[in-house]
Every structure is written in structure tokens, then in C-alpha cells.
């Protein structure tokens, strides 16, 4: 039981007028109508219920060991590739992402970053640099300005080496806990002459074992630097962050700036190709390959765009954009070149690696193509129709669902692309 006298609490209870200031600005009636406007309709729920996915058949005791096996495998992989993440795959071998406002990135599971800057994973921490908004919902150590900040749930703004906490709690390098509204910035020293040295009691407490700076020969004044206001941190794009990032990183950020300013597909692809030529060993060269290949779909002749996509797939096998590259390649081969056989390898990849409608669509095209290519082989045609019957047409778009129905029932149907 506390030894504090009761008046300590009673004298610090919020007053009625103070509580009144924390009013909910949302109109309750508007909120109720918002709720109803975004609630799934009865028809939507019925449609989802009709698509109940089938659980795996043949439950085996081996399932009990699967998670353990997976965990051991991941540990083995991490021991070989210490900078690999178990969340989103890195965009390049060195795991550095250039973060953009329109491409928020979940750097590791539980950490998402938006804004302008860079994010990377180094051993057990996420290294951040730039003007960023960071959302954390899993235990993590963030390295900001070379200093560690730990949290398991928070929203914070980062500007260079300064931090402002919007929500949650963050442990600062000096051991203090920062909560909503708190700001943190490293101490700076300004050499002036002659002034008495700052008393030791005024210096911010340092974590045990943290390096200390030797005082300048002249007197030292400790002046904390205020970080920018949280509201301005993302809204006002600024020059690249403090320090001197590599030229390749600056150039990549500039290129994405130009894209945001309105480069069309062709010019964007040319800029990406120029970047690769100038910085062939850049951590972003691979992403430049992927984005240029995808962008080419919008302007290049189908054969050229398809060649670029397949080149990107060959160069970047297993990369983070592989599914999108295959999706685009399958579409080009089928819709633009009318060559379902050329689309088939790409559709197979999508069918094996996508989910939901994307997977079902790829399965349909594979079956329709097999039906078309079956020619006079009744066994192949029968196998293709069997595959079509197994597909749930309720999740397909209407035109494709109709094509499937026709192919299922019309013995003379050649499986032409709808």
C-alpha cells in the first residue's frame, strides 16, 4: 500500500473543466452513419460465406512438427545470411530501402516506414535515416542517428537524428521513456570562449557504458536541439538527410522525386536505365531493373516489353517483384501477343504463388490454354475441362466466369481467350 497521503492524488485529479476539454470532436450521429456506410452488406457477407476455403485434407501429426521445422530452417538461414529479414524480402542484396511517401515499406514484420529517407536492417536493429514516420507494433530496436531506441508499440516521427513520439512508448538511448508528445534530440556542444563549463548535473543522464565526448578546449555550452513538429515532419519534403549518403542513394532518391513530379512511363524507364548504367553496383540497381520492366508494359511494343520482363525475371529470380513481373508477362503474352503457350509458364508461377482471385484467374487461363492446345487429343481436353470444373467461378470477374462456363459445357470449345 502506498505511503503517499491521499491529498497527493486528490489534488492532482483532473478537474471537470479540464476533462471537458478532452471532448470527442466526432459527431456521434455521423459516426453511426459512417459505420453503416462501411459495414459489409448482407449480399457481400453471403458471397464470402459461399466461398468458404477448404481446409487442408488429411491432417497429419507431421503438422505438429512443421512449425518447429520451419523455425529451425529460419534460424539456419539467418545464421548464413545475418542481414536477411523474415518479413518482406529486401529490395536489394544489402537490404537498404529508399522510403517514399507513396511506397510505405514494412521493413521487418511489425515495423512500417513512410516518408523520405532510407531504412535498412543491420543484425538485430532497423537503421533509419531521413524524414520518416515510423509505425511499430512488434519489439524492435531502431537505430536513429547511430543511437538505439527500443519499443514494441509506438508511432514516431524521425528527422535526421531527432525523434518525436506521437503515440506509444519508446526507450531513448539515455534510458528515459518517451511517450506521446515527447521529443528527443542529441545534445550538441558549441565551443565559446570564455564561459564556465556546464555543471555536470545539467547534462542529460547517459546510459551506463555509453561513450562520452571529451570537452572542447574552450568552455562548453550544452544546447539541446528541438526536432521539427510532428505535423511538419512528413508534409514538407526536404533535402536528403543529414550526413553524406552515398551518391547512388541520393541519385535514387532524386529519380523517385522526378517520378513523383510526373515522369511518364517511357521517360521513367529511360531514367531507370540511365541509373543502372551510372551505378551498376548500387543497392537499387536491381529494383531499377524491375521497375523499368514493369513500366515498359505501358508504352513499349508487346514483344519488347515481354523481353524486358523476362530479362528482369532471369536477373532477379526470387526478388521481391517476381510475382508482379510474372503477372505482367502473362498478360502481355496472352492479351497482346495472343500466345497462351508463351503465357503458360508465367501463369503457372502466379497460380502457384498468388492467392484468391489472382490465383484462380491464372488457373483458368492455364486450363483454357490447355484446352485450346489439346487439338485432337481427347485425353488432354478432358483433363483441361476437369481442371476448369475445379475452379470456383464465383471469385472470377463476370466475363471470365462466363468463358469458363462455356468451356465446361461446350465440347467443341477451343478454350480461346475471352
Amino acid at each position, binding site marked *: 500500500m502506498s505511503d503517499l497521503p491521499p491529498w497527493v492524488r486528490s489534488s492532482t485529479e483532473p478537474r471537470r473543466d479540464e476533462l471537458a476539454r478532452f471532448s470527442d470532436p466526432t459527431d456521434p450521429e455521423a459516426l453511426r452513419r459512417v459505420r453503416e456506410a*462501411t459495414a459489409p452488406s*448482407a449480399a457481400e457477407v453471403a458471397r464470402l460465406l459461399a*466461398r468458404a*476455403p477448404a481446409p487442408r485434407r488429411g491432417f497429419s501429426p507431421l503438422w505438429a512438427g512443421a512449425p518447429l521445422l520451419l523455425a529451425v530452417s529460419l534460424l539456419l538461414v539467418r545464421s548464413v545470411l545475418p542481414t536477411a529479414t523474415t518479413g518482406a524480402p529486401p529490395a536489394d542484396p544489402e537490404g537498404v530501402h529508399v522510403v517514399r511517401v507513396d511506397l510505405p515499406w514494412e521493413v521487418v514484420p511489425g515495423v512500417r516506414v513512410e516518408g523520405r529517407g532510407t531504412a535498412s536492417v543491420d543484425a538485430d536493429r532497423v537503421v533509419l535515416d531521413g524524414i520518416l514516420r515510423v509505425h511499430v507494433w512488434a519489439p524492435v530496436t531502431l537505430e536513429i542517428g547511430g543511437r538505439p531506441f527500443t519499443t514494441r508499440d509506438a508511432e514516431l516521427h524521425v528527422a535526421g537524428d531527432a525523434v518525436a513520439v506521437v503515440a506509444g512508448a519508446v526507450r531513448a538511448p539515455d534510458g528515459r521513456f518517451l511517450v506521446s508528445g515527447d521529443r528527443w534530440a542529441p545534445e550538441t556542444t558549441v565551443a565559446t570562449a570564455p564561459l564556465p563549463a556546464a555543471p555536470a548535473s545539467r547534462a542529460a543522464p547517459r546510459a551506463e557504458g555509453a561513450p562520452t565526448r571529451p570537452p572542447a578546449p574552450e568552455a562548453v555550452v550544452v544546447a539541446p536541439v528541438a526536432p521539427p513538429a510532428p505535423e511538419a515532419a512528413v508534409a514538407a519534403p526536404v533535402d536528403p538527410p543529414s550526413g553524406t549518403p552515398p551518391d547512388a542513394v541520393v541519385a535514387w532518391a532524386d529519380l523517385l522525386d522526378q517520378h513523383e513530379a510526373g515522369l511518364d512511363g517511357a521517360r521513367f524507364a529511360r531514367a531507370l536505365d540511365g541509373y543502372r548504367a551510372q551505378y551498376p553496383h548500387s543497392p537499387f540497381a536491381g529494383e531499377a531493373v524491375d521497375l523499368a520492366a514493369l513500366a515498359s508494359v505501358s508504352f513499349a511494343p508487346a514483344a519488347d516489353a515481354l523481353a524486358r520482363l523476362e530479362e528482369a525475371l532471369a536477373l532477379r529470380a526470387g526478388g521481391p517483384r517476381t510475382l508482379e513481373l510474372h503477372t505482367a508477362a502473362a498478360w502481355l503474352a496472352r492479351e497482346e501477343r495472343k500466345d497462351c503457350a508463351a503465357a503458360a509458364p508465367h501463369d503457372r508461377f502466379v497460380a502457384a504463388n498468388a492467392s484468391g482471385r*489472382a490465383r484462380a484467374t491464372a488457373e483458368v487461363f492455364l486450363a483454357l490454354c490447355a484446352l485450346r492446345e489439346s487439338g485432337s487429343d481427347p485425353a488432354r481436353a478432358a483433363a483441361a475441362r476437369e481442371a476448369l470444373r475445379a475452379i470456383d467461378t464465383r471469385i472470377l470477374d463476370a466475363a471470365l466466369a462466363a468463358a469458363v462456363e462455356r468451356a465446361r459445357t461446350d465440347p467443341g470449345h477451343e478454350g480461346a481467350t475471352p
Partner: protein
Amino acid sequence: MDRSEPDTLGALRALEPRAVDRFYREHAPSVLGWVIRLGGHRLDADDVAHQVFEVALNRLPTFRGESSERTWLYGITRRVVANARRKGAIWAFVGLESLFASDPGPSPEHTSGLAGQRRRVQEALEALPFAQREVVVLLDIEERPAPEVATMLQIPVGTVYSRAHHARRAFADALARAGLTAETVVLAGGVG
């Protein structure tokens, strides 16, 4: 259903059809609602909700029941929604949204009537950072108790209130900018 009873949990982990069917029917409306409200208008809510259940069914054999089924499903939903949003962003980034993204775009059919209204509300929600959007959706729109929201988001109750304080003001502003007031928002006949 709060925590799964031992018999129910065992049946779920064994993927017994009746248990799985009960699980699906009980939680489908909630999952679909979360996807609509958290995922924004660019996502095909039906498809993403289906993906959530595909993931859930694959993981049910390892579900230990330490959290409620709803909390567990919500964790899966936010991951699937985040992945779907990121993939959708790539198509928009390379200018291929019209070919490969599920959102049909602001055609007249999708800007008028109830569909258009839902889109505008979703855009107002998207004006919030994801962490604030979650709190508005769970605490205010779905009216779940703060302790339950804290459990679902795995954050302290105080953080729920803190985020709600910032989120409500931002959401009120976003609704006002979208011209959505009590008078302009009409009933959609939703189920919850």
C-alpha cells in the same frame, strides 16, 4: 465467442468440418468489415477477406487458443491487408493500376450512390495513419471496449486512448473535408 473452449479448440486444430464451418460463419462478417475499413477502396475486399481465411485455415492446426479467435484473426487480417495494399501500390507506381489493380477507379457508377459514399468514407479513413485508423475502426466504428481493442492490437489501454484522442480529431477533419456530415451520409443497410 471469446476464448475457444478446449473441445472447440481441439476440433478447430484438427480442422473438423463443423468446427471450421462455425469458425468461418462466425467471423466472416467481422473480417470483411475490417478489410473494407482498413484496406481502402483500392482493395477487392471480398478477395482479400478470402485470403485472410486461407491463411487462417492453414494456421489453425497451430492455433494455441491463448488469445481469442477474434484477436488471432485480426492479427492475420492486418498483415494480409498490409501486403495487399503494398502490392496495389506497386501497380499504381508503375502506371499499370488500370490493368492489374482491383479498384475500377472513379467512374460515375462508383462515385454516386452507396458505392460512392463508401468510397468517400474509405478515403476519409485512409487520411489517418494506419495505427490511428485501426483504433477508430475498432473503438469508434465497431464500438468495441477499449480493453478488447488493447488486446487485439497488443498495446496498453492507455495507448488506445492516446491514439483515439489524436485519431478522432483527424478523422473528424477528414470527414468534413470529404463533405461527409450526418446529413449527407445515408444508410447503407449493412450488417455490422
